[in-house]
C-alpha cells in the first residue's frame, strides 16, 4: 500500500510559510536532479516541484525557458526522469510534485504517466495547459486512483465562480499566480494584496500557495501573509546557472528566502 499522500501530511502539520521550490529536471546537468532535490530538502524546502522540460513552455519566462532548452539538449525526457526518481524515496521524504506541459505527458500516455508517478512516489501534478473540462471528463479518475493530487492555477483575473469550481476539482493545494504573467516576472507582489485577501476570505477547501515573482525574503513574506506559502522558480533556476557546488548555492539561496 502506498503511504498517505505527503502533501496531505504536510498541510495537516503546517499551514503557513510553506516553501515550494521549482527545479527543472536535468538542470543544470543531466544527472543533477537528485543532488538538487537533496539540497532543497536539506535546506528547508517543504515541497519539491520538478519541471519536466518542454520545447515550447508557453507559461514560462526566459529563465525557465532556457533551463528547459538546456535540459532537453542534455537529453532529459519523461522516461529518463522516472528512472532518476526511481529510488528517490530512499532519501527524499518531503512531497514531490511534477510540473510540465500536456503534450509530452500525452505522448508518454496519461495512464502510464500516472502509474509511473505513483510508483516512484510523486504526490502531485501540475499541467497548466490541461483545461478543466478535459481534466474532469477524461483524466480525473486516473489521477485520483493513482493517489496523485492535481493542482490547478488561479490568477487575479479568474472570476470567483470559476475559483470555486477549480477549488472543488483540486486536491493538494491551489497554485495562485501572483500576477497575470509568465514566470520570472518581477512586478511588485505588494500590489496584489487585494487579490490574496480575496482568496483568503473565500475560505477555500484547498490550501493556497502563491507563485510567480517571488525571489527574496520580502516577497516570500508578502506572499505568505495571505496564503499558506509560496512557490519559487525562476530565482532558484537563476541561482543554479553556472554553479559548481549545488549544495552550497542552494543553502545560500534558501537562507536568503527564509532568513
Amino acid at each position, binding site marked *: 500500500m502506498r503511504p498517505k499522500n505527503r502533501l496531505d501530511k504536510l498541510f495537516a502539520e503546517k499551514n503557513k510559510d510553506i516553501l515550494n521550490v521549482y527545479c527543472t529536471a536535468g538542470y543544470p546537468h543531466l544527472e543533477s536532479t537528485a543532488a538538487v532535490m537533496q539540497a532543497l530538502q536539506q535546506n528547508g524546502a517543504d515541497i519539491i516541484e520538478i519541471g519536466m522540460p518542454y520545447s515550447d513552455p508557453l507559461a514560462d*519566462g526566459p529563465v525557465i525557458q532556457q533551463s528547459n532548452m538546456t535540459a532537453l539538449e542534455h537529453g532529459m525526457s519523461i522516461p529518463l526522469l522516472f528512472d532518476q526518481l526511481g529510488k528517490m524515496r530512499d532519501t527524499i521524504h518531503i512531497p514531490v510534485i511534477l510540473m510540465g506541459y500536456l503534450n509530452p505527458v500525452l505522448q508518454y500516455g496519461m495512464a502510464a504517466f500516472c502509474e509511473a508517478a505513483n510508483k516512484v512516489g510523486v504526490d502531485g501534478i501540475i499541467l497548466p495547459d490541461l483545461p478543466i473540462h478535459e481534466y474532469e471528463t477524461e483524466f480525473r479518475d486516473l489521477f485520483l486512483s493513482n493517489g496523485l493530487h492535481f493542482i490547478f492555477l488561479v490568477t487575479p483575473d479568474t472570476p470567483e465562480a470559476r475559483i470555486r469550481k477549480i477549488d472543488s476539482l483540486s486536491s493538494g493545494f491551489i497554485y495562485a499566480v501572483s500576477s497575470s504573467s509568465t514566470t520570472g516576472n518581477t512586478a511588485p507582489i505588494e500590489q496584489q494584496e487585494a487579490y490574496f485577501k480575496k482568496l483568503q476570505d473565500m475560505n477555500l477547501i484547498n490550501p493556497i500557495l502563491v507563485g510567480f515573482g517571488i525571489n527574496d525574503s520580502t516577497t516570500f513574506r508578502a506572499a505568505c501573509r495571505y496564503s499558506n506559502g509560496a512557490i519559487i522558480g525562476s530565482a532558484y533556476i537563476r541561482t543554479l546557472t553556472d554553479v559548481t557546488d549545488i549544495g552550497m548555492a542552494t543553502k545560500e539561496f534558501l537562507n536568503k528566502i527564509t532568513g
Partner: protein
Amino acid sequence: MSFNVNEHGYYGNYGGAYIPEMLYPNVNILQEKYLSIIHEPGFRQEFHQLLTDYVGRPTPLFRANRLSDKYGARIYLKREDLCHTGAHKINNTIGQILLAGRLGKRRIIAETGAGQHGVATATVCALKGLECVVYMGEKDIERQAPNVARMKMLGATVVPVSSGSKTLKDATNEAIRDWINNPLDTHYIIGSVVGPHPYPDMVARFQSVISEEIKKQLLDQTGNANPAYVIACVGGGSNAAGAFYHFLDEEQVKLIAVEAAGCGIHSGKSAATTQLGRPGILHGSKSLLMQTADGQITEPHSISAGLDYPGIGPLHAHLYESGRAIFMSATDAEALASAFELSRMEGIIPALETAHAVFVLNKLNFRKDDVVVICLSGRGDKDLDTYMKYIS
C-alpha cells in the same frame, strides 16, 4: 459528418482550448462573444464595406487558359494575391480588428512567418489607430526583409524572436507570452486557423469570404457553383480553410490541401505535418503535430516561411482524418519550379507558399471538363530574393 466546431471547440477529435489559466479571461470572452459580435448587422456592414473599399473585394476569379491547356482541365485562379497588402491574410485581420474594437482593446499583437499576416495586422492597426506589436522569428526576418520594412513603415514594432527554431512556431510562443503578460488592454490577432477555440473557427469564418465569392463567380462564369477541385496550400491553413469553407458539405467537390515537403517528406527537413505528425497539443489546441517520440515539438523546414510550421489547424486535422480533404505535398524545388511556371505562363508571380498549391497540377489526373480552382493566396514580391537566387 459535421465540419463545424462543437460547443467545446472541437472538430471531431481535434481543437479545444488547451490554455494556461492566465489566458482564460481573454479566451473565454472571445468564446462567449465572437459569434454574437460577428453576426451583428453593424459589424457585418462595416466588415463588408472594408473588404470592398479597402481590401478590394471581390477578388477576381481568373480563367488561366495556358495552364488549362497544359494540364487538360478548366483551371481558375482565385486572385487573393490582389487583395490590399498582397495576400488573403487581410480578410482575417479586418475582421479581428473590428472585433478588438468592440471588445475595447487598444493594443494589438500578432505573430508572423512570411510577414504577410504581420503586414496585414500592421495595416489594420494603422487604419484604426491602434498600437501594433508583431513577433517574428529571426530566421524569417532575414528571409522576408521586404515585409519587415513594410511593417515598420506602417508603424508597427517588430520584435525579433530568437528562441527555438527562430521561425513561426517560436514567434507564436512569444505572442502568447505577451498576451499572458498584458491581459487587459491587448487583443491577439492570430493569423491562421490555429490556436485555442474560438480562433480556428473565427479565422475560418473571416476567410470564408474566399469560397463565398468563388461560388458566385463560378456560377456566373460556368453555370455551376461547384468545381471539381479546390486546391490550396496549408501551413496553419487559413487560406485553405477559407477556400474550402462553403464546399465542405458539397461532397462532389474534391478538396486538395498541399503541404510543404521541404527537401522531401522523409529528408528530416520538411513541414508535411499530416505525413510526419501525430496528435498532440500546441498553441492551445489539439491537432496533428510534428514531434519527437517524447512529445517535444520538432523544427520544421520549408523554403516558404508561411508554411514553416510544425502543425496544422484542427479543422484540417479533422479533414485529413475523415478523408474529406486529400493532403498532398510539394518540395522546395517543386514549389520554385511552379512559381516560375505560373509567372511565365500566366504573368502572375505567386508567393512561395502559393506555389506549393500550383505544383499539384502535375500530380492530379483531370478530366477535360473538370473545373479546378486554385486559391492564389498571395503574391511573390516578398520572395523575389529567393527567386533571383534560383535563377542564378
